[in-house]
């Protein structure tokens, strides 16, 4: 089970956090601080796993961003690396060669995609295409609703002129 997902930038800025196990607010800040100290200082050739408080944190660096997932001692670390990569590929397809700025300004989109990928700390979908399809469908639902709203307000504006 994945206990939480963290996206941290090279400078230690938090870009995304998702908690599947209950961590109180104060604890969350502490965890993030502790882990960024642990992970950001590791050299490039070292393995992608850090043992921490009896858990394992699997991380992978993409450009300036560290994707970290915390799992149990007996979970499959190599698979988590695949899951991270899976997520990154989906983000990449969605944003079109994703960069850190995309994730900053569209952080909610990154969360929506993560929610299509993981629920309750477990993997939900192994097909990138399927995830992309569901996200696109929901985005278009939002678009339609917006258009309706604006056309409605146009009509009202027309009528009250």
């Amino acid at each position, binding site marked *: 089970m994945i206990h939480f997902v963290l996206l941290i930038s090279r400078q230690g800025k*938090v*870009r995304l956090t*998702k908690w599947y196990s209950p961590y109180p607010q104060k604890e969350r800040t502490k965890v993030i601080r502790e882990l960024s100290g642990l992970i950001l200082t590791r050299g490039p050739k*070292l*393995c992608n*796993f850090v043992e921490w408080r009896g858990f394992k944190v699997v991380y992978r660096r993409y450009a300036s961003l560290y994707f970290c997932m915390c799992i149990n001692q007996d979970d*499959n670390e190599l698979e988590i690396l695949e899951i991270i990569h899976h997520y990154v590929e989906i983000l990449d397809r969605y944003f079109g060669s994703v960069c850190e700025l995309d994730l900053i300004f569209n*952080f*909610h989109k990154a969360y929506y995609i993560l929610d299509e990928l993981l629920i309750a700390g477990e993997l939900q979908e192994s097909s990138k295409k399927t995830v992309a399809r*569901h996200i696109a469908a929901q985005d278009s639902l939002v678009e339609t609703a917006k258009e309706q709203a604006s056309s409605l307000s146009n009509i009202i504006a027309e009528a009250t002129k």
Partner: protein
Amino acid sequence: MNPFSSGTRLRDMIRSIRGCKTAAEERAVVRKECAAIRAAVSENDQDYRHRNLAKLMFIHMLGYPTHFGQMECLKSIASPGFPEKRIGYLGLMLLLDERQEVLMLVTNSIKQDLNHTNQYIVGLALCALGNICSAEMARDLAPEVERLLQFRDPNIRKKAALCTIRIIRKVPDLAENFINSAASLLKEKHHGVLLTGVQLCTDLCKVSSEALEYFRKKCTEGVVKVLKDLANSPYAPEYDIAGITDPFLHIRLLKFLRVLGQGDVDTSDCMNDILAQVATKTEPNKNAGNAILYECVATIMSIEDNGGLRVLAINILGRFLSNRDNNIRYVALNMLMRAITVDSQAVQRHRATILECVKDSDASIRKRALELVYVLVNESNVKPLTKELIDYLEVSEPEFRGDLTAKICSIVEKFSPEKIWYIDQMLKVLSEAGNYVKDEVWHALIVVTTNASNLHGYAVRSLYRLVQTAGDQEILVRVAVWCIGEYGDMLVNNTGFLDMEEPITVTESDAVDVVETAIKRHSSDLTSRAMCLVALLKLSSRFPSCSVRINDVIVQYKGSLVLELQQRALEFSAIVDKHRNIRSTLVERMPVLDEATYSGRRAGSVPAVVSTSQGAPINLPNGVAKTTSAPLVDLLDLSSDDVPVPSSSGGDFLQDLLGVDLSPSLSQTDTNQAQKRGTDVLLDLLSIGTPPAQSNSSIPEMVSPSDDSKSAINVLEQLSSPSAPAGGVSTPPGSSPMMDLLDGFAPKPENNVPAYPSIVAFESSTLQVTFNFSKQPGNQQTTIIEANFSNKTFDAYTDFIFQAAVPKFLQLHLDPASSDTLPASGNGSISQKLRITNSQHGKKSLVMRIRIGYKSNNKDMLEEGQINNFPRGL
């Protein structure tokens, strides 16, 4: 409309926050935005709720408080449109977690959304439920989720399956309801549903044995077939990763098979073929393939025995271990740890490679490898393995040394074939990484050394040599100083010379040099210096020619700001100066310390040792902070009063140390027991093995009023019980601290009215009990004891009950206690009066068994002990 809320768009806010150059600037921007959002919230502004929530989430991510947005999430979820719901659920998952009461308010909205006609809205509700639901919500909404497991759209079915996992993790009782619908998911073709269905079944098995039985019987073959089809499936672009179709599903199926096969031979047999196929056919080139192999090995190791498969698995691990990729090596070490219980021989074969991994540059790998080496050690390989580890200790990184040292010490202690080897290895460790060695380890080394009488000379000579080269290792120096103090003559005379030793010539003054350098080193701490003083005292007798020089060194500490050192210096210099005739008996060699008693005690006292070493620094009366526990205690870990001594063992460890029962001889001197405790500690530091009556006669001038001595000894006592509050202790001005050492033996003036000193009746790592005594005038038989309890932990105790039992010749009456709650950290105490009538007054002294029960952190605690240090004459 709110004048603020229309102000900035989400994008602009993020931009302006990113533009901030200082943290203060950022706070200002955030404060302004939060104010605007609050205003919008209080006006119930609906047009911009969407935008405000998004802003809040960003602010939340930066670590600012956003609780005022929680209700907005709920409102947003309750609104009819999809965009509002989408952002509302996202906010719900981000800004709230399962412990918040607010969450209950959303149950109804989620329930409605689970029944919504739009499948994406159902999906949002399931996702939120799966990520943050509490136990109550799980109970309330389980039926809706169960229904959704059969929903027509696979997107909903898979979400419902994962949501069910959360529900049964929160409320395992609900598991039974889901068994059938979960089993039907295993027949699905859709990968997402199958993936989540398999995961659900695995989790069901973990919480319900009924589910495990059911799936074993009904589904094993089906699952094996699914895995077989998957492993043999042709290229499927949608699910392909590095040439493998859906490795995620592979891994989940293997995991499920592991749960099914564990502890069941038939089921395990059923999956042998497919496991063998996966283990041999999977391409190990890419991470995805290795992930599957890794999972497959884990399954092979866990299911019921099949020799052939296990060989296959160990071989895979061997390949992993020699892989250049650190990740692969890491998981190999991890898995070998589990394999060792199954087939330790096979793991031993990889010992050399594992040992190499201990020296890896990667901390994670080093840690795994070290733990593995630790379990690999046995009697036959301990010597080469220890040598490797110690060699590596020399070059290891500082942050790794602590772990490494602890493991080496533990290996050496556990498996040492002979004492000389043990001493050699420990000395090597001490000279490389002495400062990482725990107190009990070097204490043990001293105990072992004293026991090996043929190695005394060898040990002290080796230590002498090492100190010349590694004099900066404080712990090494301590051990060396102790041994030189004890066996200095052997060092000089080359007594007990072993054939393998190199000859060495040490003069008496060389030996004193070592101790003198050690005591003068700036980095030496109180314990080391105190030990040095004792060693000097001993050497003054062993080497009479150096005694003037030694006294000069000791005298320098008469003015030490540290009370402990000052006191020792005064006492010792008095002995060196004035009491030549008793000196040699005073500083005789320590009697052999009983190894079995020591190690047994050590096992029992480990928590106490931990608590004292981690405790807050104690302020000595003269304001010098001291972080280690008191030196007197530390010397030989005499902290017996910290540990509830098992009453069965009866005797005091101090007496064991001396091998002499001091109490009869001491009782003749009619000193009270509290004094005795203080002197005891000193006595064995000085190795007095002779009845003190002798010394009595030789020091008549040392008689002093007993109250003086009492206070001085109290200081001593205070030092020897590091956990006692040190605040109230001070030496009365004018009293001469050097008196007290030998005062204990002075006969007390007859006309002294018996005033009984308080005693620490019982002390553990969590609790201290002190007794104050008073007599009713005219009734010598009855003693009134006021017991005071104080709490040494940071948790208050409730339901505090003190019980006591006494032998038949005593009568005990307990008054009610002042309270049944004991505040934390000694902030207040409970007092309780006891009245004891001693029918054999004058013949027998008091003795009492006690039992203390209380609740700490809602856990029932019980402590027991026996008190036999009552002052005499009660």
